[in-house]
């Protein structure tokens, strides 16, 4: 992994490192040559690691007080809120932590989309990242079921019923997922078990994600291949760690703002009503981070069609590296693609908005337009634009435009602005 050989200074260190080269790994992580032009959009990897650890730590603590039983779950969550020392704080960190996790992961994903970080040779990093994203959605969904409020129960009902759209075996699969003939105590029990498991699967994938990253090294805002180590790189520590730490502090201020000042703004008041299998709340809405996919589901007037399209919206991202035909990675040098990128951002935000609105009238029209554009972007725009677009000239190295202005001063300024 590391280009140079590492030898521990102390005798004991050398003895241990010969048997398990943990110190070599540590040295690699410290010295890891990183492009020197990484901007703040690159700090979200560290922020996401923080989010994962926060969720695991608060989750383990909550599990010490929570009871996974249909008759007791709701009361045990209220018990955490009212009786357990600092229970309110731990639960609010955990519930808002999920939202902050998704906020960070969406920024991280769109960063990749803008700077072409999913392109060769980083396809495997991208695919592992998407697997983490899928597991995050599963964990968040199951976690939302645990308080056993009205939104928990009916959210679980609607999502598990998605599988009933599968021809022939759909109903059997749904019953199997439930362990009953409706969402019931067995469902709650297994969701708790899986909700506890998934974060550790994510942790394992995060290790692979970072390992895969350290093979080719980081992409960077200009998206060119760089020599490592060279004038274009800095060691990860202290240059990147301090930048990551600063970004993390800013992120934590926002996080704390939610936890302390408006801890329920991202939730639904219906979830403070205990689950009732006889009454469905008037407006069932998933958590905000799933709304764009919910809008896609509802935009199709056919059950199976809606479910297929919703899952396709996620799975199409897996083949993205092969749908993008451009040889240039960074959108900084892709004047046409750059515009379509921002249209996609607006499109996804709009889908999120209409997903929260009733599926009728203008909202239904917007959902359909948004869904069509979403798929057109990946299936048509990315291959065609990559093929036809005349890209701007690319610098030879990171140092060239930054230090000398390069052959084209205008270009140098442009990159400087982005960085």
């Amino acid at each position, binding site marked *: 992994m590391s280009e140079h050989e590492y030898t521990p200074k102390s005798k004991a260190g050398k003895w241990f490192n010969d048997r398990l080269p943990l110190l070599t790994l540590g040295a690699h992580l410290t010295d890891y040559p990183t492009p020197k032009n990484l901007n703040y959009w690159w700090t979200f990897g560290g922020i996401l690691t923080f989010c994962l650890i926060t969720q695991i730590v608060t989750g383990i603590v909550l599990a010490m007080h929570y009871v996974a039983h249909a008759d007791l779950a709701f009361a045990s969550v209220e018990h955490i809120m009212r009786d357990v020392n600092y229970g309110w704080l731990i639960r609010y960190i955990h519930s808002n932590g999920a939202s902050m996790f998704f906020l960070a992961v969406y920024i991280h994903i769109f960063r990749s989309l803008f700077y072409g970080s999913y392109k060769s040779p980083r396809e495997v990093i991208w695919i592992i990242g998407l697997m983490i994203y899928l597991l995050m959605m599963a964990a968040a969904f199951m976690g939302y079921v645990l308080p056993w409020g009205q939104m928990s129960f*009916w959210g679980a*009902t*609607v999502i*598990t*019923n*998605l599988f*009933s759209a599968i021809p022939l075996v759909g109903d059997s699969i749904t*019953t*199997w*997922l*439930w*362990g*009953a*003939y*409706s*969402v*019931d105590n*067995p469902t709650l029990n*297994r969701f708790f078990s899986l909700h506890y498991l998934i974060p550790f699967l994510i942790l394992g994938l995060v290790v692979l994600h970072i390992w895969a990253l350290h093979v080719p090294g980081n992409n960077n805002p200009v998206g060119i291949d760089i020599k490592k180590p060279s004038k274009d790189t800095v060691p990860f520590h202290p240059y990147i760690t301090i930048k990551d730490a600063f970004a993390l502090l800013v992120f934590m201020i926002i996080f704390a703002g939610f936890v302390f000042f408006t801890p329920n703004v991202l939730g639904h008041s219906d979830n403070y009503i205990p689950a009732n*299998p*006889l*009454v*469905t*709340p*008037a*407006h*069932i809405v998933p958590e905000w981070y799933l709304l764009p996919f919910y809008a896609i589901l*509802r935009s*199709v*007037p*056919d*059950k*199976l069609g*809606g479910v297929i399209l919703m899952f396709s919206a996620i799975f199409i991202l897996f083949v993205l590296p092969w749908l993008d035909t451009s040889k240039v990675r960074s959108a900084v040098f892709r004047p046409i693609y750059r515009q379509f990128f921002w249209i996609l951002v607006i499109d996804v935000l709009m889908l999120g908005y209409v997903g929260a609105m*009733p*599926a*009728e009238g203008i909202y239904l029209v917007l959902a359909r337009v948004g869904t069509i554009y979403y798929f057109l972007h990946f299936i048509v725009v990315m291959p065609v634009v990559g093929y036809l677009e005349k890209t701007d000239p690319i610098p030879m190295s990171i140092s060239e435009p930054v230090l000398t202005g390069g052959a084209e001063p205008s270009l140098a300024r442009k990159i400087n602005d982005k960085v």
Partner: protein
Amino acid sequence: MSKEEKKVNRRDFLFTASYTVGAVGVGAVIWPMIDQMNPDKAQQALATTEVDISNIEPGKSITVLWRGKPVFLKRRTPEEIAEARAVNMDDLPDPQKDEDRVKEGKDEWLVMLGVCTHLGCVPLKDKGDFNGWFCPCHGSHYDVSGRIRKGPAPTNMEIPKFEFVDSNTIKIG
């Protein structure tokens, strides 16, 4: 050469046999791990519910819980029955006669799962464009016979297995 070939064949046989036995063994262990998630005996034991229907006035309905799911029992008025039977089959996404959704001679009693066939929400009674039920989740409209008329739900609301124990009692399941 021929001796060597024979050896390789013997080894191939052992490989194939080992893999086969291994696969059967793995399958035999995996199946219990999968099947344990299916409804257990306690869940299956809740399979029937008896309901007293003597207090239900014509035009009114009650909701009872059966296997964790709501069941609508509606005593329909003659006008409602006539309305359900006047519907043209071509207007139905999932064509089914009203006569086939009730017990013969007990036409006033509509007994059905109060579960929207789209994604499982409980539809609201006396709502929607067809004088029947309306699902608030994704906007499916059902008529007075519980048949899907408009919206994303693919099929009519399901009729569970039920029977009249006597004139005042219905057994569901």
